[in-house]
């Protein structure tokens, strides 16, 4: 059949076809759709779950692999940092059933706190890394990735970037699953990584990498015969192909699909008759550094243009136009000059990222902000939709570092700047991901902070995945529900308040103000389901009582409220999610509810 598949979907289809037995992951853009797609497949030897975090996921995958199962653990680049501990050990310990660590990098970045390059992680961990250029290529590479993993008993990194993960392509394939028998766990001393064994296995790992070089090199290829050599990989390969259209004779391309380890012979073969090499890659200069090293070690010196001499940008994504610019800069060839466009004619201001209309977090943030008014407060934030608490006019998020850090950083502030009140915000999924350990620490070490858990009963940012607090498993079937309140009580924290951010605003502000009064460790759970999960029964509109005071607009910053050219305030009926928050701030009864027919 022929189907339009997103890169992540293509990976999922191919994983299933190639007999993956266990698929685990934690949602994170742009990686989420691999598990989201895999959950649509069913077989008696296939299991899929959303795990509590990436470390948990990879350790489950490791166990299943040692028992002989083909497994995949999925995550985004920052998730790989969380899973780094098991990954670095697992590279030494080795695997049994094929194990793919699927990692989505985010050049740009579009929705991440870092732009880190997983190819560097591959060098760091001594692991092979596949780096496909398109959904179709990703589809084709899953099979060899499993085979390499099984042949060399090593985890394989499968790295894609946003523009491969989230691009779609029509792909022709047959949906037929390769059935494999899982042989079961066999006890061996190899699986217990004592220091003495680790030393021996480290040498083995280095040897494995040497051994697989030639085999992996078969996935890299040389195109064209021009004297100007371009070394590229990932999605940049297509930017290069398009940028050189019409001038193909000038160039030859070394398309790197397996970025680590590189085979010296193949690189030298490509470089031997080149006048220069231009490196077109996103993020870190991984290919540039590796190839340069090989050339140097073999006494070959030719001009090199890349990131290290500022011809290619270190940060952000590339595209066809940027690649043409690079060729123009390197070759001073006017044929690569960009055409004029409409760019400067009309400047459209950026749309500021903001919480959705009707988001319960907007109300929760405002309740805390009003309750803390007049006090010197530091608000620490975390990773999720609610990171947008930093945006004006909410402005209730002063820091954001990584998953779980709101709770732990708050303790740091308390230690170093104790005169201030510190309030940490964290979402429900993130709390389970890595907030719990921080909370245990605050109890144990007597750090008196207030932790606000913004529980919208889902993982909102990545598309509504379930988590332990929802009690639902990946298919919506019953798991066991972990109660946030019981967990907090179980640590020993007694001061707990549960609030519905949609209920009476003034009353909520009073409750929170009282809660903040004594400086004790306490947890407030704001609980209300994500506005996007509920179908809308009503919306609000502005009536003739409006005196254009703009308070509703100024206080809430709700994207559904705006003013027209005459200064008239209106609520966009298509955007309003009917939370009614704005009504609390209108003194003239100018906001009224309209039921949807």
């Amino acid at each position, binding site marked *: 059949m*022929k189907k*339009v598949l997103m890169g992540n979907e293509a990976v999922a289809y191919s994983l299933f076809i190639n007999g993956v037995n266990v698929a685990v992951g934690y949602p994170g*853009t*742009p990686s989420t759709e691999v598990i989201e797609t895999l959950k649509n497949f069913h077989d008696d030897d296939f299991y899929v779950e959303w795990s509590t975090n990436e470390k948990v996921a990879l350790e489950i995958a490791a166990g299943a692999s040692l028992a002989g199962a083909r497994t995949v653990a999925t995550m985004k680049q920052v998730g790989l940092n969380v899973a780094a501990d098991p990954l670095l050990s697992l590279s030494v310990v080795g695997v049994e059933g094929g194990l793919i660590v699927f990692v989505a990098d985010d050049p740009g970045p*579009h*929705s991440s706190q870092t732009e880190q390059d997983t190819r560097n992680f591959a060098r760091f961990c001594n692991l092979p890394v596949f780096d496909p250029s*398109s959904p179709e290529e990703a589809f084709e590479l899953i099979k060899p990735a499993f085979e390499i993993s099984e042949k060399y008993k090593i985890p394989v990194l499968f790295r894609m970037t946003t*523009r*491969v993960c*989230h*691009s*779609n*392509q*029509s792909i022709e394939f047959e949906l037929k699953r390769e059935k494999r028998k899982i042989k079961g766990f066999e006890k061996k001393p190899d699986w217990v990584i004592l220091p003495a064994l680790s030393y021996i296995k480290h040498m083995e790992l280095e040897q494995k990498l040497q051994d697989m070089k030639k085999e992996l090199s078969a996935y890299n290829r040389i195109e064209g015969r021009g004297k100007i050599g371009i070394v590229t990989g990932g*999605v940049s390969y*297509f*930017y290069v*192909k*398009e940028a050189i*259209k019409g001038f193909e004779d000038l160039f030859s391309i070394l398309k790197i699909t397996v970025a680590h380890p590189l085979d010296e012979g193949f690189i030298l073969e490509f470089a031997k008759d080149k006048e220069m090499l231009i490196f077109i890659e996103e993020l870190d200069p991984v290919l540039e550094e590796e190839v340069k090293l090989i050339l140097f070690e073999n006494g070959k010196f030719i001009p090199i243009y890349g990131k290290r001499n500022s011809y290619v940008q270190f940060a952000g994504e590339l*595209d*066809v*136009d940027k690649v043409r610019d690079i060729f123009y800069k390197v070759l001073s060839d006017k044929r690569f000059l*960009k*055409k*004029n*466009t*409409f*760019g400067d*004619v*009309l400047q*459209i*201001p*950026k*749309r*500021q*990222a*903001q*919480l*959705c*209309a009707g988001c319960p977090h907007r109300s929760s943030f405002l309740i805390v902000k009003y309750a803390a008014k007049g006090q010197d407060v530091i608000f620490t934030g975390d990773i999720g*939709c609610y990171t*947008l608490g930093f945006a004006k006019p909410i402005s209730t998020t002063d820091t954001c570092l990584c998953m779980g850090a709101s709770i732990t950083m708050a303790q740091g502030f308390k230690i170093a700047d104790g005169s201030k009140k510190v309030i940490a915000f964290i979402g429900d999924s993130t709390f389970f991901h890595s907030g719990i350990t921080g909370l245990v620490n605050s109890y144990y070490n007597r750090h008196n902070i207030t932790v606000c858990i913004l529980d919208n009963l889902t993982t909102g*940012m990545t598309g509504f995945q379930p988590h332990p607090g929802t009690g639902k498993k990946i298919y919506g079937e019953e798991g066991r529900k972990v109660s946030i309140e019981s967990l907090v009580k179980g640590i020993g924290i007694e001061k707990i308040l549960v609030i519905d951010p949609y209920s009476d605003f003034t009353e909520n502000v009073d409750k929170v103000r009282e809660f903040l009064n004594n400086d004790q460790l306490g947890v407030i759970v704001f609980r209300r389901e994500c506005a*996007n999960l509920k179908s809308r029964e009503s919306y609000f509109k502005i009536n003739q009582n409006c005196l254009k005071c703009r308070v509703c607009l100024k206080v809430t*910053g709700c*994207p559904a409220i*705006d003013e027209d*050219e005459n200064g008239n305030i209106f609520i*966009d*009926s*298509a*955007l309003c999610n009917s939370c009614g928050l704005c009504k609390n701030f209108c003194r003239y009864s100018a906001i009224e509810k309209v039921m949807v*027919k």
Partner: protein
Amino acid sequence: MNDIIIAGIGGQGNILLSRVVCQLFMNKGFDVKSAENIGMSQRGGSVVSYIRAGDDVGPIVPDGKADILIGLEMSEAARNVNKVNKDSLIVLNDRFVRPKNSDLKKQQILRFFEENFPKLNIINAHDIAFKLNMPKAENITMLTLICKEEILPFSKEEILIALKQVLSPKMYEMNKILVEKIYERY
């Protein structure tokens, strides 16, 4: 007709529309590629999809190369004019959601498009979707009107086939009624 841009704001169904357009082109025998910006651009943020037919192309449409620009929202369409040229076909939904903290005006954007693009079409998908009591179906309303007015070469039957391939059965039934109504009444 190789490169298409669909621009709008989060919540308008941009991504789904791009899926349907891909399917329409694929059903006509094209190999398609597409890309989109999703993630932190939540409801209300800028969303843009690129759809491309052809070999050896990446997912991003180069500047000035788009043949068609479909704007679900006008200022988002204007944001992406870098991607089109004077000969490009422009289809705008008559819908303006002002980027906050700007004094941008709808007339300003309309004038810009009128002055620069001879092939400009304005379509009232927002109001029609609202009148048909399906405000969330602005995307498919837009597509249906574009095809009905023969701006894009797809028949009603072809739209329904593509919708059936892309949507869940429940969503398909709702959208089928929408498409039928639009062909009957508008």
